[in-house]
């Protein structure tokens, strides 16, 4: 990684962290939403947390922010008294990994039943990169994987962790609970908000579309194209196949529009000025949105046309 890229990457992470610092965590309540079978979604601040409970203990996907750890653990204990055995991180952003260490400490794992923190190796590499603010060691995903997928079997069901290359970041994992028929997507899928395609940390719009299509391949809707496989998104409500389709279509259509403008030789500023997302902004942008329309368009533009520094797409 070049110094410049590393700097931009750190800025991107800092932007997510700065967004979190504006929140008053004392006021945050953890909402527990049952999903399907033994899977629950915990909503607080930052990304959603998935909880799988069963006879072997507890598995989490993402941990929100450290100050919320006591509240999150209190809700988990209402669901299960069992040992916390796994944390899976979908990517490196602080609103998804920030609670790792604090939750690990509160869970007080039995040495005979150690807690494993799993993520793609790119997450570990970026969290420990030189210049990166020190990440608590006990929260690092040192059970990293570097393969296209990783399998577990826990609480009576197969759990498959898929690496989705260069989508939201370069370290995205999607977690399929095969028995419960539930998928945790991380920030690849954020209904109600544009995806944060974190170019500095290896994201791209084409990878985003490929990842959304892969999630769609794994979802099997029930009657009338709804229900069946349920989706826990990075942020927002519980979804299913039809919701992913709407989101995927939005990303593809915006990609098509930006690509058309790039072919016409438009600069980033000209593309943003053309407002290629203006029919989606009322749906995907709110006053509190982290990803504005301009930020989304910029990410799509840069994904499609690495600039040569002139402000115009390189040919």
């Amino acid at each position: 990684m070049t110094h410049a890229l590393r700097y931009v990457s750190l800025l991107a992470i800092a932007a997510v962290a700065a967004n979190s610092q504006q929140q008053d965590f004392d006021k945050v309540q953890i909402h527990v939403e049952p999903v399907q079978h033994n899977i629950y979604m915990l909503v607080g601040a930052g990304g959603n947390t998935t909880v799988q409970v069963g006879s072997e203990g507890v598995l989490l996907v993402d941990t929100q922010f450290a100050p919320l750890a006591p509240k999150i653990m209190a809700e988990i204990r209402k669901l299960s008294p069992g040992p916390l055995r796994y944390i899976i991180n979908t990517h490196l952003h602080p609103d998804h990994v920030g609670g790792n260490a604090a939750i690990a400490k509160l869970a007080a794992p039995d040495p005979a039943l150690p807690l494993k923190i799993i993520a793609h190796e790119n997450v570990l590499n970026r969290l420990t990169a030189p210049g990166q603010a020190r990440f608590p060691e006990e929260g690092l995903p040192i059970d990293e994987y570097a393969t296209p997928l990783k399998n577990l079997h826990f609480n009576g069901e197969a759990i498959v962790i898929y690496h989705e290359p260069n989508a939201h970041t370069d370290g995205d994992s999607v977690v399929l609970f095969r028995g419960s028929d539930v998928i945790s997507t991380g920030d690849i899928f954020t209904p109600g908000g544009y995806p944060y395609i974190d170019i500095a940390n290896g994201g791209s719009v084409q990878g985003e579309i490929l990842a959304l299509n892969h999630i769609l391949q794994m979802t099997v809707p029930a009657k009338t194209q709804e229900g069946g496989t349920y989706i826990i998104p990075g942020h927002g409500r519980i979804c299913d196949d039809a919701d992913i389709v709407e989101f995927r279509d939005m990303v593809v259509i915006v990609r098509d529009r930006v690509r058309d403008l790039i072919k016409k030789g438009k600069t980033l500023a000209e593309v943003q000025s053309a407002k290629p997302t203006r029919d989606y902004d009322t749906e995907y942008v709110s006053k509190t949105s982290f990803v504005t329309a301009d930020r989304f368009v910029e990410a799509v533009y840069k994904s499609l046309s690495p600039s040569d520094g002139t402000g115009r797409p390189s040919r």
Partner: protein
Amino acid sequence: MIRFFALALLASATAFAQVDFSGGWSPLYHEDLPDRIPGPELGDYLGLPLNDAARLRADSYDADRISVVPEYECRPHSSDYSMRGLANMRVDAIRDPVTQRVIAFHTRMNFQEMERTIWLDGRPHPSEYAPHTWAGFSTGTWNDNVLDIYTTHLKESYLKRNGVPRSDKASFTEHWVRHGNYLTVATLVTDPVFLTEPLVRTQTWIFDPSQVIGRDICETAAEVPKAADYVPNHLPGTNPFLHEVADWYGLPYEATRGGAETLYPEYRKTMAKPEHPRDRCERYCSCGAEGFVCLDPTAPPPGKKP
């Protein structure tokens, strides 16, 4: 003793549902027949209080999406649109097994076997994080003999089948009124994403106890090869079909673009002259007249030679 039974009957009449909607119902299309049976023309947004976002979203819509993207093939209408879609309906009253009170009405349409429950037992709507469905979550309350229904948790869908969108942040209110064998349903859709004011539509149904609603089983099939990252759409400013409706019906193009002002009769006083005025009907002229259906859009009105 007689007085006792009379009082008991009165008490039970107020405690239970005031009107029974159970049974089979057939839609009456009236003047909406061309819009509801063959379906709306592309680019026809007249009378819809759309904002600019909705207009561009509809302009970008390419109907190939239904055939090319398998996930669209088996979708039913959402519950706001299904009340004016082309399907018969059966309504069943759901009773509490202990009290025998009607706690819900359950509806089933024959198109895509769309089902919906309207709860009358006072239960709350789900949390904001619960899944959304085509039917949404509906609760009803009685206002004299009118059933007022409020529906939330809708999936993103359409206000018309020509791509005019309705978001998953929308909600709608209905008023079901039964007059003998006729049922009038008024639907008021509110959508902060795509509408500048509520969209109000009414539909009429006739009691049809002899109808049989069969199965309508749909399975998706990828019959048209396509790249995984291809979603049919028109780039802004490139949809070639948007002027058709104005030309076919002799309307000013601006009127077909919709907007709240086109809802009201006063709009006719200020709207522009059509570019291609028509002196006679040339499309869907026989729809609904004397039992004619709308299979041939160019068929002349009944009794007129082509």
